[in-house]
């Protein structure tokens, strides 16, 4: 090869090297500068965890503490980003594959660059409101991927983090006239109050209070909404298992429609029924059915804003929420991310964090942690307002199924205006 050719070859090689170098630098640069910068930095694993709204504050606080604890498994620093989503909303996203899970048979290495970027924010775990929601998401997974994506056994099995239940709450000023006139709180009592033509005037209260207003989560926007309706159905039919046929019963339909006429329509979009009562007072509800944890968290605000508390009453039949922490086991997340998610699960189940849950009105999953285990426990603080601690005995409704949810949605579309 003569010198000129050598020269030309050298120039071409240098150019090619430069271009390759630029491409490599850009790829690394983009990765480092992207939103998932930390994920690609050596030693840092960033995971996204979807959290049900009732546990959001507790999980968020725990995530900050967890990030400050230092090195996790696989010798990596773990950063947890909490994405608060109502269980129904999250379920809808799983069902519609809005997180862009890979199609069956697709391997991570087959992903395009864009798909890889979108997977960088794929949730590593989901703290659902209840186990039945995870079951429904798994049903959808089986249809799409041929297998469950959240496991109930093995290393990455879902585990309940804490518990809460639906309880009745009534402004103290409204309690006396209502209970004196209609008896103990139940769906039947509330229905009678809801249909009273002149409202509080005939219920023994101040006529200026207007009609009786019922606070209950929006059944279309919050997972506790359908749960409340199902407990109402349970009481109506006097059993803990409600069927699709029950929901189609004309007698129940008109009874429920009258009941819903008294609902105020507040809540949804991330605001719980209890928060609505704190902010909007009596217009959001003279009373209603709330998650115990939501109500305990909102109690201070209710008292400050409206100069009186909401008193708790425990229903005979209710729905429990157990907040299972479910780790995604599909190929969309790496082994490092799965391990990081599991480490955070362990952290939330640690005794210290279980005790911290009490400060957010949540009943710990760990049976060894007493409800008055810490000074800041909301159970202790609001005991005088009717909070039941240990030894609470209520009947539990059977789990919600997809068919029941569909039937409720259909009923709502047909009957429930805003």
């Amino acid at each position, binding site marked *: 090869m003569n010198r000129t050719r050598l020269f030309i070859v050298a120039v071409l090689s240098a*150019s090619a090297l430069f271009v390759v170098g630029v491409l490599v630098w850009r790829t690394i640069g983009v990765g480092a500068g992207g939103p998932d910068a930390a994920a690609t930095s050596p030693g840092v694993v960033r995971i996204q965890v979807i959290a049900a709204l009732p546990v959001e504050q507790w999980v968020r606080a725990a995530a900050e503490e967890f990030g400050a604890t230092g090195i996790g498994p696989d010798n990596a620093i773990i950063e947890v980003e909490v994405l608060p989503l109502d269980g129904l909303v999250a379920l*809808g996203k799983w069902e*519609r594959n809005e997180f862009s899970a890979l199609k069956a048979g697709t391997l991570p290495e087959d992903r395009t660059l864009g798909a890889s970027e979108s997977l960088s924010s794929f949730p590593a775990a989901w703290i659902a409101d209840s186990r039945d929601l995870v079951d429904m998401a798994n049903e959808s997974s089986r249809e799409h991927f041929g297998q469950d994506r959240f496991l109930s056994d093995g290393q990455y099995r879902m585990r309940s983090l804490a518990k809460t239940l639906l309880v009745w709450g009534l402004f103290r000023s409204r309690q006396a006239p209502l209970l004196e006139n209609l008896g103990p709180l139940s769906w039947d009592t509330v229905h009678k109050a809801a249909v009273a033509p002149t409202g509080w005037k005939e219920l023994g209260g101040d006529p200026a*209070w207007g009609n009786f207003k019922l606070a209950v989560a929006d059944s279309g926007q919050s997972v506790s909404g359908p749960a409340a309706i199902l407990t109402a159905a349970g009481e109506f039919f006097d059993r803990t298992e409600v069927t699709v046929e029950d929901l189609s019963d004309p007698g129940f339909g008109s009874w429920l429609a009258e009941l819903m006429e008294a609902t105020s329509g507040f809540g949804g979009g991330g605001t719980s029924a209890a*928060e609505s009562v704190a902010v*909007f007072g009596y217009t959001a509800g003279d009373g209603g059915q709330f998650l115990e944890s939501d109500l305990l968290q909102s109690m201070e605000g209710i008292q*400050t804003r409206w100069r009186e508390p909401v008193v708790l009453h425990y229903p005979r039949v209710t729905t429990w929420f157990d907040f299972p922490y479910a780790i995604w086991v599909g190929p969309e997340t790496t082994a490092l991310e799965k391990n990081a998610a599991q480490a955070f699960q362990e952290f939330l189940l640690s005794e210290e964090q279980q005790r911290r849950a009490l400060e957010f009105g949540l009943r710990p999953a760990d049976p060894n942690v007493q409800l008055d285990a810490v000074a800041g426990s909301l159970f202790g603080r609001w005991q005088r307002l009717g909070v039941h601690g240990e030894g609470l005995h209520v009947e539990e409704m059977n789990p919600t199924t997809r068919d029941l949810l569909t039937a409720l*949605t259909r009923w709502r579309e047909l009957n429930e205006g805003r």
Partner: protein
Amino acid sequence: MNENREGTEQGHTVPTGKGRLRIPPRRQLVALAAAGFFLLCACSVTTIRAGNWVAGILAGSGSGTSGSGSAEAAEWPANSAELTVAVSPLMAATLRDRADSFNSQGVRTSDGELMQIELVTRSSRDMVEESLSQPVYQAVTPDSSLWLWLIDQRWAQLFPEEGGSLQASRVGRSTLFAVSPVVIAVQLDAAQQMGWPQQSIGWEEVQVRAASASGAFRWGHPGPSSMPGIAATLSKFYVGAGITRGLTVETATLPDVMEYVRLAESAAYVSSAGRGGRSPAGGGENRAVGADGGFLDAFVTQEQAVIAWNQGSDRDLSPLSGLDGIGQLLPDGQLVAIYPREGTVWVDHPLALLELDGRAGPAVTPNQRSTYRAFTEFLLSEESQSALLEAGFRPVDATIDLMEAPSPFAETGAVNPLLPLTLMQLPSQPVLEIVMEAWRLSAPPANILLVVDTSESMEGGKLARTKAALHGFVDQIQGDRSRVGLVEFGSGVKRFEALRLLDAEGRKQISLLIEGLEAGGSTSLLDAVWAAHGELGDLAEVDASYAIVVLTDGRDNDSEHRLRSLQRAMTGAANPVSVHTVAFGRDADEGLLEELARMGGGRFYRADETTIEEVYRQIAASLQLGSDG
């Protein structure tokens, strides 16, 4: 190979089969090498960039994609951390203050992008319309969650196939940060005459007083583009029906109820954005407000406005009414907030991220989501909650005591933070639609000329979609008092069909005229607008509105009139005629159309074959709502 170690000018030669080839000297060789290196690198990088661009276009993320039905193109970079928020007039000033404070903190995303909040002001109702296509904003703060619900209702109707256990939502998570109940702000003397504060006062008393023959009491409220406007209008239905809840379509449309509402509408000053208000007038005839120079005794607004008014920090109230100078209609005294006995509603100012998914323009970026989260956290911070309280709102942090100094609620009897006690029940969507259209019962008729390009380029699918859009437009114009005409243009004005009353016969005629549109010829856009404006500008009808809706897919290439002469004609016209323009497809002269809309005080829209019907529907709605300015 020989080398000339000294030579710089001379080249070397090497023997070849074809003769002797000159060998450049060493420095030239180096220079050539450098130039070659540079050229090759440049070519490679350019090729890669071009490849990326083409890939982007193919992937639908190219910058060539533009929104439709919107006055501005919705585009932002894929790493944008700038969040644009549409805010209702009721919250605009306060949120501006909060946004400025947030922006000054210089918060950055994890990849170093500066988080910024930009605000655009929209009526809540406009947000619903715009959010269904590709708005220029990624988040909204309407005055009530009701509007978010309406967005999702409409979205579900547009995309019913996107099911799941919960219907796909256009609105992501929303956050409340400050609320305020809707009240009747009454001038102190007038309130005392009504028995305040000893007696509870309701919507009924206010409406009865306003309807009395003496005319001694005058009240007003915004139009149905805001929550206070909806509350005031809804109250007329409830009072008319003699109920406090359970309003159904059947009840709302009873002749007695409709007649009551019509009279109550006539007896109230109703303002709406972009259109002159209507004052209470005798004989059911509406007159322009201010014609008799009267003051209002009461105005329906949010509680915060009463605090701001009494503090002297806001004596304009125009953001609350959508009409400049409304504050001048109230006497310069103290106002008190009446929480209506029958119940009221809240303006809860939700801040919601729109789930723009990239189907009609750029999607919300991860950085914009981060900015949304950071801004909501900022709004819920102690600093912001205190600032919102200071501005007269009720912060959502309920642990903040409203009655503790220096709260503006603490030392005033004008507002009562322990009220309201009861709620005005919002009816179902069909009833709500009736309520929101109730203003038509006493609204002035509209005179609209549809100016349509039927040049050769409109042949085929374009013309077919346009006809469908025009039919939809006419269907959308409610009632039988408005008039619509048609101006078809190509090489000059091909057909001028005068205004026809939209009664049953008129609707049939217009429908036939639309079907008769035929493509052919060049594009005489300005001549057609000139003709339409000449017709409307000289009409002598009192108490009516006038509008031109222009559509073209190309550029004016055949007009005798010029833009400047048209502008002069518009300025000198007897009637104010609003001009709305639609650029149909990519070849339309957007610059000219934007200028026409600006001159005519109307709006400019982009449309393609998939969005043209929705654009015309939006225009019809805005013309009827009076938000045409």
